[in-house]
């Protein structure tokens, strides 16, 4: 297995040089169909960000149980392994399978586009990724969801909240990305 891994890695196209392996229209349509089944079978929309909040609550509960459970958010959303946590774990597994079968599996700390602009050092990239993650978590909890929960699932249900949040995602994101990369 390890030798085949090596061959796969060695033979790959670099995923950061290529775009979508499958038609993005087809992939989007299939995600739409997947949503039908999550509604039908699990009575739930696709959504990713709340999984991180559950894990956060579980860690908090292990370290400072009384304080963690005094917080309103964790009283309303009990820290536990739930459907969304399993979904996000599944996403990691599914992406491994997709990258493996598509010869796009890598092990890399700094994406080439970042490296070209900010250099190849790992620490700055990780710090910015961490700060970005923290802001996304605060923003998603405040808005009520992320790119999946609002951007796809909420938007398809014609929820007003989701279209407002989705516009916010792109407004905040485009301004920040252009400040970072357009010089």
């Amino acid at each position, binding site marked *: 297995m390890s030798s085949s891994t090596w061959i796969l890695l060695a033979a790959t196209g670099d995923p950061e040089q290529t775009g979508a392996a499958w038609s993005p229209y087809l992939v989007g349509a299939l995600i739409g169909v997947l949503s039908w089944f999550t509604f*039908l079978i699990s009575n739930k929309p696709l959504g990713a960000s709340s999984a991180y909040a559950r894990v956060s609550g579980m860690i908090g509960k292990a370290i400072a149980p009384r304080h963690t459970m005094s*917080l*309103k958010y964790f009283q309303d959303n009990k820290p536990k392994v739930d459907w969304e946590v399993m979904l996000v774990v599944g*996403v990691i597994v599914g992406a491994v399978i997709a990258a493996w079968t598509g010869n796009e599996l890598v092990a890399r700390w700094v994406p080439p586009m970042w490296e070209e602009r900010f250099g190849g050092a790992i620490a700055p990239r990780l710090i910015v990724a961490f700060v970005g993650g923290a802001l996304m978590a605060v923003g998603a909890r405040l808005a009520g969801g992320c*790119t999946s929960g609002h951007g796809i699932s909420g938007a398809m249900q014609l929820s*007003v*909240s989701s*279209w407002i949040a989705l516009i916010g995602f792109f407004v905040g994101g485009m301004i920040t990305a252009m400040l970072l990369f357009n010089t």
Partner: protein
Amino acid sequence: MSEAQQDMPPLTDTNKTRQLLWGLLFGIIFGFLLQKGGVAKYHVLIGVLLLRDFTVIKVMLSAILVGMIGIFALQRAGMVKLHLKPTRYLANSVGGIIFGIGFALAAYCPGTGAAALGQGNLDALGVVAGMIIGSFLFAEMSGWIGRNVNPIGERGELTWPQLLHLPTLPVTIAFATIILSVLISLKVAER
């Protein structure tokens, strides 16, 4: 238990353990699709924010279009219930913008970040750690936000048909037409 079951659409699996496994299975399919769609990649995700690469738009709008048609058909047939996040004008917009700033810094969003990690973009570990700490920071503020931010422009569960006082079907058709037009324009513009 029986009351909870009555509240559920007909095909919902009520077994809790099996439901977790369904979550895992749906996640595997979702992650597989995200990676194949190219949206686990740094340059594709930053590319959309710089208006250089429209892969993300194609994936999202196609998902919204197909999902919307199916969900409203199934809802009409009484087979699914909608799950709407409350509309709160201030929280949705400010939260959305904060999320967007974080998204540009991270490049991976919560779902695509998990997919990026699976693909081997290890910088996504920084995003995952940030998401976990950020969630706790939000929880620290959640009481105050609940009292002071959420009530501003609070409208509860609200859909476009409700807001516009129009029946669901024509609004769905209008959204489908607009989304389809954007998708076709993108396709034509690339030629």
